[in-house]
């Protein structure tokens, strides 16, 4: 039972780190209705600073790295990202009172990656002195984009099937109102509870033609998001220019401090979003609590395969698990709002921000690091 006692000690230890302290502090601050607020401009700038730093340090290190090693972990990242969405599609989406499109969007967000969770993971890895491949942070887009694409494609297939059913039904029921669209047409799934019964409209809405989903626009949309852009910009600058002087005098020293403030914001967000989550029902809460750990363990497993076959470091395995357990908070939601417009944002943002991210940060990260340390010791 040495394994378990070792693990527990390590786990409890991590719970006292300042990163988590600020997260919990933020939750408390919001819970007592404090008017403390981090201005939006500061929040956006901190996210930028963290991701460009992660990119820069990766880029600088990659210059001398053997990128062939990256192949297998990158493929695994893709596989995990897609898998997470399918898991959500066949679990959460089948629960009673859960609308299918909402569930698919939620699964997409949990498959996608959170830059701030990644940054927190990297910080704690460094504190613990665990080595990892310099390119490991660059696995981010390999999991993020496939997850979002899969979710949008699945939702689109589902919606057009529903639409076909609906329209064939409707043809027989002439004169029925056409206003409804994908959202209200779903029987029993109207979790949001709003119908357009009382709505008024100057003229009837024209029928929308089902369209084929195109993959490339979704990929482009993801890459253009502010988080991925900052990460890739940092990578490119790290590889192509000599940013060591700025990196060491500016981006690196500020990293931990800025991260702690970001954790505060995440904490405040989590509390603020709890209400939204409550509206959409308990299945989302359960999914959001269990998902991050499950996804992390799956990724940890894949990572261990790479560890044994190609020598992927245990630190790298932890990073893979952390990005799997994280759920996107910055780039993902707008991409989903545009890509699955009929899904209720309260469902997926509530799940991710109020429960998913705190679980990934407060339980996931210490768990996977503890696990790696036990495995190293053995």
């Amino acid at each position, binding site marked *: 039972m040495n394994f378990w006692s070792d693990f527990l000690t390590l786990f409890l230890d991590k719970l006292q780190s300042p990163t988590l302290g600020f997260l919990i502090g933020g939750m408390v601050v*919001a819970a007592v209705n404090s008017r403390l607020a981090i201005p939006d401009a500061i929040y956006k700038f901190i996210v930028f600073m963290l991701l460009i730093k992660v990119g820069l340090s990766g880029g600088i290190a990659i210059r001398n790295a053997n990128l062939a090693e990256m192949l297998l972990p990158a493929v695994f990242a893709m596989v995990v990202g897609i898998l997470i969405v399918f898991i959500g599609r066949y679990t959460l989406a089948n629960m009673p009172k859960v609308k299918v499109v909402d569930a698919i969007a939620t699964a997409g967000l949990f498959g996608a990656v959170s830059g701030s969770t990644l940054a927190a993971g990297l910080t704690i890895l460094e504190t613990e002195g665990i080595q990892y491949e310099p390119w490991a942070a660059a696995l981010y887009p390999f999991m993020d984009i496939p997850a979002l694409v899969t979710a949008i494609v699945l939702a689109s297939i589902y919606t057009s099937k529903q639409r076909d059913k609906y329209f064939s039904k409707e043809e027989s029921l002439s004169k029925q109102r056409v206003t409804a669209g994908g959202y209200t047409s779903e029987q029993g799934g109207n979790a*949001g509870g709003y119908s357009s019964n009382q709505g008024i*409209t100057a003229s009837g*809405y024209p029928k929308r033609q089902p369209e084929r989903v195109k993959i490339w626009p979704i990929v482009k949309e993801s890459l253009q998001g502010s988080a991925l852009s900052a990460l890739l910009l940092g990578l490119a600058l790290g590889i192509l220019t000599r940013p060591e002087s700025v990196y060491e005098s500016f981006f690196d020293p500020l990293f931990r401090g800025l991260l702690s403030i970001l954790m505060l914001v995440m904490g405040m967000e989590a509390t603020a979003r709890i209400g939204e989550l409550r509206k959409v029902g308990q299945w989302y809460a359960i999914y959001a609590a269990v998902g991050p750990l499950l996804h992390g363990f799956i990724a940890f497993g894949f990572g261990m395969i790479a560890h044994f076959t190609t020598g992927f470091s245990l630190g790298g395995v932890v990073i893979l698990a952390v990005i799997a357990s994280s759920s996107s908070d910055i780039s993902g939601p707008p991409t989903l709002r545009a890509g699955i417009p009929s899904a209720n944002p309260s469902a997926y943002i509530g799940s991710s921000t109020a429960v998913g991210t705190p679980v990934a940060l407060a339980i996931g990260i210490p768990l996977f690091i503890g696990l790696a340390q036990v495995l190293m010791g053995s």
Partner: protein
Amino acid sequence: MTQQACKLVIVTEKLLLKKIAKIIDEAGATGYTVVDAGGKGSRNVRSSGQPTISDTYSNLKFEVLTPNRDMAVKISDEVAAQFFDDYSGIAYLCDVMEVLHAHKF
């Protein structure tokens, strides 16, 4: 010389900015004015993943002066048809007594 006009007001989610601006342009309006707005309506669904803490407003209010009711209704119908199934939004028409000065109307 002044001229009478209609004012179409559309309040909807911020991420539709560019798409609605395009619809207005294509309908032949001479311009539009847009302001950041917050609000509450029947749907009350958040439009983005941005933090709510210290959040700025997540709606937009468009105001379009049109020379006649028809153009306004055309814009409004197009916007409603494309977006109001999935996004929050309201559209209404006001009377403008007269346009006093405009570079082009």
